[in-house]
């Protein structure tokens, strides 16, 4: 332990850029450091510590996840069906690709090739933008369906729509059949499978009625084509019954992805700032610390998503 003061934490002084510093009086050298090397190592250690705090910040939310996954797995079984695996997988690819371009930007910064740094940084930025765009699509769908976290969770509106449809259905049936007869005697014939020829059955003492007829009539009367916001086609309805406190899954989903999204936005702001620095000519092979540290941050944001995707989307 009691080695030279500057030999601590050798992994921070990664070999490849260990050299090339150490000449005093550089414009990049702050007055309280002895050498650029010391300044670089201090910055890097500081960044790693900051990333540690970020991991712990998310750690609290992962605990939230773990406790509820252990105690209430039914929330996850029910809730995850609303998450679109295709969008999730696409976003994973987008972020992984952006990590590659970020790493390339750092490499180019070490070599001091200005245009290439700008190119790779802007690709990274665009990937961030794409990620947020996809998240926007996903979030709007959830909001549309009333899948909010907490008290404003209103998936119940769908149930209302279901009853609304039931009412309409009863009305149609009543119109199409003999109203004077009690409704209980009406027989609904549901198509067993797609493509099956629907043969009207004769109900005892009443008129047989086909489900398709009802659907057409409901559409005509309510002006609600299928797939309307209020009405979710049965195929997309969750397969299991809604558990109590189902909203907690969406609390977890929105807390985790929301905090992550904020970090992506911050990362995008960092990209812009880095590009400004590059344009101003502040970045070169002698001083690329900002790009390096920005890259570390971006990789962490990426890494967190790598955990979020399977934990939330691939629960089965």
């Amino acid at each position, binding site marked *: *332990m*009691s*080695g*030279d*003061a*500057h030999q*601590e*934490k050798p992994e921070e002084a990664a070999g490849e850029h260990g050299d090339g510093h150490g000449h005093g009086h550089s414009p990049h050298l*702050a*007055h*309280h*450091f002895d050498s650029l090397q*010391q300044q670089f*190592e*201090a910055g890097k*250690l*500081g960044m790693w*510590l*900051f990333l*540690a*705090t*970020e991991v*712990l*910040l*998310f*750690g*609290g*939310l992962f*605990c*939230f996840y773990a*406790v509820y996954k252990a105690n209430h797995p039914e929330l996850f079984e029910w809730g995850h069906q609303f998450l679109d695996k295709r969008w999730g997988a696409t976003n994973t690819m987008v972020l992984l690709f952006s990590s590659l371009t970020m790493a390339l930007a750092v490499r180019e910064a070490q070599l001091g090739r200005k245009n290439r740094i700008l190119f790779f940084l802007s690709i990274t930025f665009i990937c961030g933008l794409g990620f947020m765009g996809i998240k926007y699509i996903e979030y709007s769908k959830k909001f549309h369906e009333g899948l*909010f*976290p*907490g*008290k*404003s969770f209103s998936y119940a509106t769908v149930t209302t729509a279901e009853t609304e449809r039931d009412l309409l259905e009863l009305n149609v049936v009543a119109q199409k059949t003999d109203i004077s007869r009690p409704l209980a005697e009406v027989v609904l014939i549901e198509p067993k499978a797609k493509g099956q020829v629907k043969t009207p059955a004769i109900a005892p003492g009443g008129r047989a009625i086909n489900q398709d007829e009802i659907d057409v009539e409901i559409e005509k009367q309510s002006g609600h084509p299928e797939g309307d916001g209020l009405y979710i086609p049965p195929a997309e309805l969750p397969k299991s019954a809604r558990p*109590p*406190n189902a*909203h*907690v899954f969406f*609390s977890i989903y929105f*807390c985790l992805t929301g905090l992550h999204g904020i970090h992506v936005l911050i990362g995008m702001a960092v990209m812009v700032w880095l590009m400004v620095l590059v344009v101003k000519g502040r970045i070169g092979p002698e001083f690329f610390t900002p790009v390096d540290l920005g890259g570390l941050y971006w990789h962490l944001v990426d890494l967190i998503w790598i955990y979020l995707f399977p934990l939330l989307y691939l629960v089965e």
Partner: protein
Amino acid sequence: MKPDDKASAGSDLSSQEVEQTSQETKISGPSYLTVTNTLTSWMFTLDHKRIGLMYLVGVLSMFLLGGVFALLVRTELFSPIPLITPLFAGDDAGAQADLYNQWFTTHGAIMVFLVIIPGVPAALGNFVLPLLLGAKDVAFPRLNLGSFYLWMCGAAFFVYVLFSGGVDTGWTFYTPYSTSSPTAVIPAVVGVFILGFSSIFTGLNFIVTIHKMRPKGMTWFNMPLFLWATYSTAVIQVLATPVLGITLLLLILERTLGIGIFDPQNGGDPVLYQHFFWFYSHPAVYIMIIPAMGVISEIIAVHSHKRIFGYRYIAYSSVAIAIFSFIVWGHHMFTSGQSTMMNIIFSGITFSVGIPSAIKVFNWIATMYKGSINLNTSMLYGISFIFLFTIGGLTGLFLGVLSIDTHLHDTYFVVAHFHYVMMGSALIAFVGGLHHWWPKMTGRMFNEFWGRIACTLVFIGFNLTFIPQFVMGSLGMPRRYYSYEDKFQIYHQLSTIGSYVMAVGFFLTAFYLIQSLVSGKKAPMNPWGGNSLEWHTPSPPPLENFHGVPSATDPYELDQFDYDPVTGNYSSQSSKGLA
């Protein structure tokens, strides 16, 4: 060197010394206090010493505010019938009780988050740490200024809370009450959240500074023990505080959106909040006490003029306490319905914290043994610390025993225990450190006579306040009630009188410290005989901290100094020989 010179060195020492010091001031030029003096030069300063001083002013103002609320609480408790709450809340008993709840909450939250946590690390540490390292500044000066403004911002939220009707949840913000309390919970929680980030950035800065900016020749085991203590503290600050941050965010979301994590009404689990909260707040107890122990290690060694006993054990015990701090949080929840197995495990680990703490106490006492003790104000605070911390630590072990905790949980015994640790130890060490480094910070000596009187008053007042609380707590007096059974009145009255005595002591301290700024004697370079690097630069130090590049000294080689009664300076025998 002629032998004559050496002989005359003894007799003419004083006049030479005077010349020497006057020469020193000539060479030194302006100090960090006088180099520029515009408002912006303070507001936007990147100098760790000025930032440290600004923290100090802030922390002491908040200490005054928190202290006023403590006195309000104690005054109300002088009698079991409502005494002063009716003055503010009218005749309605419910309103009186609510007001009392707001008072103790405000007292607790201000003292914990705005005074004790930033006290030693941010105020004293900021000033002293780079000096101890012989560095020009901390590693990230801008971040340092940023932490200070975050602290100010957090403090502003608390002041806002005071004016918007207070908060009455207790400083722990326990759910489910904190999700339904009609008071200003959210502003208070946002304030704590911001203060948390201030604390994180300070810790991050200190870790990097200690890792990367030690002078040539200073190895880990050559550092002053205060640095070991601040390092261990900084690790806790960096690793525990983010968890508090996310907990408070979730609490805000629970209160606004009802996300169903902590509130059973929404499907949440209130005990989960307690786990989250104490995962930070138990380590936070050590954020308060470890740097205080570091201060005491310096004070005891310097004012005993003797090498610190068991250096490595003190250093390692700081690290050990930091590690243990993360795995004992469950002892706050023995009665919350944790499983028995968890209780047993947490209870066992809690006992083990006693080991490194006791190692420190024994080492300090061994340091004093056969030392040449100077019973000045700082040393009196140091000795008070050892006495009070021993009581605070040992009563903590009582509370760690499961069966006894069931009886004592939420009584005044707990209140007395943590006041012995937080106030009797952490805050007393802060005040001791303030006296120890006051000449270095301000360049002025304070009045020793009044210093000793004030310290004695604080010590007597403190014990008078809290020893009766141990007694009434074990008799069953619960905490957080504004009224009580008549049989407890005598203890409450003793306690209240003690708090007044303590207040007199602190006001006296404020008085003579301010007086020293106006008319105090100029401080010499080394008024106490310390050998760590801050005593090798003028008082107050120049902007760049040192003239030239300092090289590491042995901070505990303390028996080499001779005291000069004329200048009040300690100078090393070897350098005098050369003169």
